């Protein structure tokens, strides 16, 4: 059993009449890539900001690294590197200056070599003296990662890290998150509204909706292969009628742009075979992201 790094109990935040976070409880274990999943406005960023001491909770308890927040904020933040929402940096300063300042604020006395090595790790050594205002979103994101990592923290918090990135940047970010755990033994909290992003990297996750926890658990626990969603797209007007007369009828549901089956993952090849046997022209037959099906089921969307 791994160590508990974060324990959150009954956390709440109210902005006037709005309950942004409502009775949220979860734990993060050392070595997790912990996915924080929810739609925009679900309360992910508010929760993460409360973890970082940026927002004062209206109620509840946060314990991190054995310290209570926000009373021991300095002791806690010393062990965290974070990018909250966007990697907003001092645009009028160079990448090197930004990194140097943030390293010193993290309590380090960084050498030039150390800072250049850190920039090299994120592929920015050649642009060390360039002002951040000349950087692309992806470069800013990488500099943000360098800043989050420079003081070698135990925990990395990445709030919506793929926002504004192109597909290549998203793939690089995914690779980097997995590497942080695998090669650097870091614990990572990553939040996103993109289901497939979380699905591909997280070892454990929480789904929140309207400020409340919907479900929390390990990826393997949450994805039930018995409830795999499979989409069929066809231009065969009689497809629904043909399937309605088959053994798949009870597991089929018409949707606006096709037919949706709920079945065990192992049954997908058999379904494909039967559709061909029923002479249904298949334009597309694909599994829906398993997390998406779980999310839609749980949130009733």
């Amino acid at each position: 059993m791994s160590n508990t790094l974060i324990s959150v109990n009954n956390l709440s935040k109210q902005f006037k009449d709005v309950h942004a976070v409502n009775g949220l409880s979860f734990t993060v274990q050392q070595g997790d890539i912990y996915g924080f999943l929810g739609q925009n406005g679900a309360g992910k960023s508010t929760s993460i900001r409360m973890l970082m001491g940026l927002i004062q909770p209206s109620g509840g308890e946060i314990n991190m690294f054995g310290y209570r927040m926000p009373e021991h904020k300095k002791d806690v933040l010393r062990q965290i590197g974070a990018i909250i929402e966007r990697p907003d940096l001092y645009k009028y300063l160079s990448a090197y200056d930004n990194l140097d300042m943030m390293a010193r604020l993290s309590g380090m006395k960084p050498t030039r070599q150390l800072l250049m090595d850190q920039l090299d790790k994120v592929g920015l050594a050649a642009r060390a003296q360039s002002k951040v205002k000349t950087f692309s979103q992806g470069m800013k994101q990488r500099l943000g990662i360098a800043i989050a990592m420079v003081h070698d923290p135990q925990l990395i918090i990445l709030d919506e890290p793929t926002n504004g990135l192109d597909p290549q940047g998203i793939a690089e970010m995914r690779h980097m998150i997995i590497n942080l755990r695998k090669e650097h033994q870091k614990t990572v909290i990553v939040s996103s509204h993109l289901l497939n992003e979380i699905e591909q990297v997280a070892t454990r996750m929480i789904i929140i909706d309207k400020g409340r926890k919907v479900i929390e658990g390990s990826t393997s626990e949450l994805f039930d292969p018995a409830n795999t969603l499979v989409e069929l797209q066809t231009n065969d007007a009689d497809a629904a009628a043909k399937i309605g007369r088959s053994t798949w009828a009870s597991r089929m549901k018409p949707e606006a742009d096709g037919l949706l089956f709920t079945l065990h993952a192992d049954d997908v090849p058999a379904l494909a075979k039967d559709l061909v046997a029923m002479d249904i022209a298949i334009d597309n037959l694909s599994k829906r992201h398993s997390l998406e099906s779980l999310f839609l089921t749980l949130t009733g969307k």
Partner: protein
Amino acid sequence: MVFTLIQIELYKIFRKPRTYIGFVAIAVIVGLIQLALKADGQTWLKLMFSGMDDMFAIQDGNVLNGYFVCFLVLNTLLIQVPLLVALVTGDMVAGEANLGTLRLLLTKPISRSEVMLAKFSAGLIYTFVLLLWMAILALFLSMAMFGTSDLLVNKSYAIIQFYVDAEGDDVFWRYIVAFGFAYAALATVAALSFMLSVFAENSIGPIVTTMSIILVCTIISTMDLPLFTKVNPFLFTSYMTSWKGMFNMAVDENGAAIRGSVYSINAMVQAMGVLVGHIVLFFGVALYAFKKKDILS
């Protein structure tokens, strides 16, 4: 950590182009005044004192000297300099909130009190450097350009005011203390805009609000209406030009200026007390509000 933070805050201030607006503006204005006085200052002086010949006689000597030019410059500039101070100090928290870097800063293991102390200290240092720049240009450069001699200063007592000469060697120290009072006034403006900066998410609001408050309070301070006279002693704007008190000399029974004297020490002490009180109050409110603030930007 606070020392490191102050260094970082100063580095940020002096790497921003807007910081130099104040320095350039002061250099241009002071330079223009000095050039104009160098070119045609004597004629202007004669015109200025033409109706006062019966009140005093301008003795032989250089009336248009460095001290006099400095007095003119300060009298003109210290009204506008608050804007140049607010341009930077009003941006210190709100500007970072707007950029999103406040969020970045507060994810580091530093307390909010340390952040505020460092930012305010850096703001005060900037204000000092700006005033020092003004002193170098207005006093030392004027002394180099126009030389030094006696300064015409206010001779004050209860009923009338007119000009007497303060001997040259009785002037320089007055300027040093006067700059100290000017600094207290500007630091009050810095504290006000800094406080407003905590409540805003962009720097335009605090800068405009600071100037509006100064404008309104200055109008109240200068109007002798009974209602206003009751609040005037408590308004910091009533003491913005208290530095001039250093050039009000006491006089003896023969009407001669008393060397080394200041007409009303008590008024000067009160002025300094009110200004420092406002600085403490503004910073206290800023600190309290910032510690309670949710960082949503």
